[in-house]
Each structure stands twice: as C-alpha cells, then as structure tokens.
C-alpha cells in the first residue's frame, strides 16, 4: 500500500527564516511526486511535479527536490503570504488501483511577520 508521510505536521517561522518540509514515500512504480499548496477554505493548488531522483524545481521562494525515498520543499526567506498547508502526493505506476494521487496529511506552515 502506498504511503506518504509528511513532517513536521506544523511549522511556525519568522519572516525571512528559511526552512525545509519533508515528504517521505513508499510506493511501487513511482510515476511522479507532486507538491500542492492549500489555503484555508480552498482546494489544493498545484506547485510542482518531480519524476526522478536528483530532479529539482523552483518557483519564487520555493524549491522542491527528490530522492529515491523522500522529497523536500525548501522555503527561502519566506513571507507571510507563504502561510498555507503544503501537501505532498504520489502517483503510482500502472498495475491496478487509482491513477489519481495519494496525498500525505500536509504540513501547516505559518510565517509570522
């Protein structure tokens, strides 16, 4: 069974204080690891897709990296508007089951001014 574990569950940072969120996964035949952002009362919003170990993607203050067992979402010099829940998800290879995504529980990030 696919498993996606995110840590920490919650993180409070000061504005400008860089940090990293972790996503460890267990899946057979990974066909992509995804990061989404979710604001309160909204649906998740797509950020990145990573397909192979060593791959990196960047968007503004966010950078996502991938190894064979985990992914990191690095946040550099965050601003209060980066406050949100960050969700990690995996897409399995073929061989039965959903072609949808399996999500972790998310990391609730708060950036204080």
């Amino acid at each position, binding site marked *: 069974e696919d498993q*996606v574990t995110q840590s920490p569950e919650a993180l409070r940072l000061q504005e400008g204080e860089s940090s990293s969120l972790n996503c460890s996964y267990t899946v057979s035949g990974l*066909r*992509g690891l*995804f990061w989404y952002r979710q604001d309160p*009362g*909204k*649906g*998740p*919003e*797509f950020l990145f*897709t990573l397909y192979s170990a060593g791959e990196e993607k960047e968007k503004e203050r966010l950078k996502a990296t991938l190894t064979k067992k985990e992914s990191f979402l690095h946040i550099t010099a965050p601003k209060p508007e980066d406050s949100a829940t960050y*969700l990690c*998800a995996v*897409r399995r290879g073929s061989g039965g*089951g*959903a*072609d*949808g*995504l*399996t*999500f*972790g*529980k*998310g990391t609730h990030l708060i950036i204080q001014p």
Partner: protein
Amino acid sequence: EAGVVQSPRYKIIEKKQPVAFWCNPISGHNTLYWYLQNLGQGPELLIRYENEEAVDDSQLPKDRFSAERLKGVDSTLKIQPAELGDSAVYLCASSGAGGPTGELFFGEGSRLTVL
C-alpha cells in the same frame, strides 16, 4: 478561463438525510475526480472518471455513495443516507485532455456537516 466549479459550498443536514454535490470541471478536461478531505488530513480519492466512464471507484462506499457523470462533463456525487462520519469536505478536480499528469485542478470544495 473558469476553474472547477462546485456547489453547494456548504451543506448542513441531519443524519439519514440524502445530499448531493455538483461539479463542473474545466472545459475540455476529460478526467474528473472526487476526493474526500477530513479535517487535518490530505484528500482521499473516491472516484475517477475518464469522460463518462468511472475507471476507478474502488474507494467509493457503494452502499451509500453514488456518482454519475452524464455526457462526460458535469458530475454529481450523492450520499444516501448520510451518517455522522460523512462530515467532511468533498473536493472535485479535473485534469487535461492529454491524460492524467498529476496536475489536478481543484474546486473550492463542498463542506458537509451531518448532525
């Protein structure tokens, strides 16, 4: 371009009552998903459609949940009868005509409270 539209945004019902949620995906998106999200949890897939065909409904509790996607566009998710444990946010998502890539576009969700 309009995003994924869901209604109602909020619904409060008593247990054993029926409830239905509606979703209009992004125009041209062939794949439609219904997810359930409990408080403090990530979304969990209930059902996936490719056009009008339900290609994966293995996680849908079929004793009380049903879904349809007539004409391969709009979709409706129904619960009958609702139970207390069904209180959650029901998210609809769609993805592009090129096949599921993992880039899902979500609606704002329908929050259900069962009393």
